[in-house]
């Protein structure tokens, strides 16, 4: 349940949208808003090629003034009141008993849907006008107020589980940041809050377990930062469904970050740096995969750099230089779709799949 799963354009969604939009009459602001939302949805759903044909016959009804007038009515859906109800609902959801949860989850999803509509109408307007529409101050402040109420409580939305993921999974991966209230933490399971409570109870019973929990938090934080670096909020392009590390390495672009010293040291001068982070970097030199650690390895790990599969297969890296481990890329373990690179560092453990590496 994360954004690494295979995504493809959903023809049923596109056809439903086209059918709905064909029936929209642009004589009222509601009609204009429905059209904008439809265009925003189609663009996000990866159906840009269908959008131009829908816009062309309606172009006369879609002046900037008309669009901005219609958008100003979106404030009338009263995002601020919705946010307050949502805030109460999310708090109730955290403490709800199991049988109450589905009803509260669907109600919360329905309320947040109003914010989705704003985002998609704005995207639709931008697609039609070619520039972002001009918004009045009241509109922007209503949107900001909604986001300000939701952001600190959005962790409570973990209880929505697959419903939460459904609210963003329809969109092409590189468009999901527009629905960031759904995307953030969307991979967390529905029982996340229960797990937090269990962790709290565990620490109360075993205070000495806090150190382990702190290590886990540090490792998860690091891993999250690697998978979702700050610049990833505006992804660079369509994400392919990469099935194995080997596939990914074959497609990996040549990085311009490769240092001159390392370049000189690389045999044949053909070393490509694939990924560079504060804690490590990954390069390819011929048939070798090279992992350089920038922080010390964990003293407890006999093999600090490994390639593992979800089964029992493991391949330990060979320390070829100080803090530098190598693997033969021709090894079959790299073709396993579940293979991942595991780095056991003094600061925590990092696991990297092909999908993680793409960013």
């Amino acid at each position, binding site marked *: *349940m994360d954004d690494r*799963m295979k*995504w*493809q354009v*959903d023809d*049923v*969604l596109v*056809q*439903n*949208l086209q*059918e*709905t939009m064909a*029936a*929209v009459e642009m004589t009222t602001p*509601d009609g204009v*808003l*429905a059209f904008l*939302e*439809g265009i925003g*949805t189609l663009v996000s*759903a990866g159906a840009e090629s269908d959008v131009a044909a829908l816009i062309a016959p309606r172009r006369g009804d879609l002046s900037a003034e008309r669009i901005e007038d219609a958008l100003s009515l979106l404030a*009338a*859906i009263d995002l601020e*009141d919705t946010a307050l*109800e949502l805030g109460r609902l999310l708090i*109730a959801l955290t403490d709800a*008993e199991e*049988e*109450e949860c*589905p*009803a509260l989850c*669907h*109600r919360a*999803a*329905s309320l947040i*849907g*109003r914010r*989705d*509509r704003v985002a998609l109408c704005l995207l639709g307007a931008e697609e039609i006008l070619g520039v972002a529409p001009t918004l009045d101050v009241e509109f922007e402040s209503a949107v900001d107020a909604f986001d300000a109420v939701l952001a600190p409580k959005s962790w409570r939305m973990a209880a929505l*589980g*697959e*419903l939460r*993921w*459904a*609210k*963003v*999974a*329809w*969109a092409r991966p590189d468009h999901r940041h527009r629905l960031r209230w759904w995307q953030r933490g969307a991979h967390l399971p*529905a029982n996340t809050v229960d797990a937090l409570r269990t962790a709290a109870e565990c620490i109360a019973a075993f205070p000495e377990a806090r150190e382990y929990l702190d290590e886990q938090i540090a490792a998860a934080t690091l891993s999250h930062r690697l998978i979702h670096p700050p610049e990833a909020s505006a992804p660079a392009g369509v994400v392919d469904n990469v099935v194995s590390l080997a596939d990914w390495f074959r497609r990996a672009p040549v990085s311009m970050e490769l240092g001159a010293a390392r370049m000189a040291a690389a045999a044949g001068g053909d070393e490509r740096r694939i990924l560079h982070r504060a804690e490590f970097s990954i390069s390819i030199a011929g048939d070798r995969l090279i992992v350089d650690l920038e922080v010390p390895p964990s003293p407890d790990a006999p093999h600090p750099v490994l390639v593992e599969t979800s089964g029992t297969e493991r391949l330990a890296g060979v320390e070829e230089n100080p803090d530098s481990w190598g693997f033969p890329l021709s090894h079959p373990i790299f073709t396993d779709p579940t293979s991942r690179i595991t780095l056991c560092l003094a600061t925590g453990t990092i696991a990297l799949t092909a999908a993680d590496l793409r960013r």
Partner: protein
Amino acid sequence: MNIASVRIDGGQPVELTMREFTSIRLAHAHLFKHVVRICDVSRFDAAGRDPEDWASLIPSPPLESSLLKRREQARRTLSQVDGCALGQLGETQLAPCLRCDDRSAKVNVQQQNAPLLDAYIAVAAETLRWSVKNSGPRGARVIAYRPASGRGVRFIAERPDGVRAVADLAAGGAELKLVSCYRVGKDMDYRSRWMEMCREQSGFRQQGLAVDVQPAAGGAHG
């Protein structure tokens, strides 16, 4: 209450019915939150106006159109039920339905409100019926998916007047159990809410959890 005859994922026709919530406690919590509204507050309350306008949805038994009078009436009757904390609330107090475990109180509240609860559930049933009757070329106007936590199918239906019903169907069963029923903002355009449903169902398709629901030939019970 009959809903409709449908084919789920291309299987044999199933005559869907619905007559109750998943639990009595959930039924009471919803009735007193959404219809009677002694468990919720909103900016409309001071004027005694029901933001979900249930009086227009439930003609019988007649609902007081003033929320203030509706609450007063509910408090009066609930106060006669031993063990129901909602009946002990003061005139201006609002509180959530207290998740009571008093079986006798639950049974008494159930009996006291049976006609209203039945009418409430009938509105939800009608919403699901509408969504099948008004099927498009790609199936019923519902979101239907298999929740990760269970083996059944969850249905979400919404009709143009804003009533939304969520119901669960156990694997291999035909009787839907109501999970929730409320009215979303009447100010929102139905086309917008339909597009939202299409996106959500698409999200379930992308996860491999979506369920296809088609009306069985001649199966809709108008």
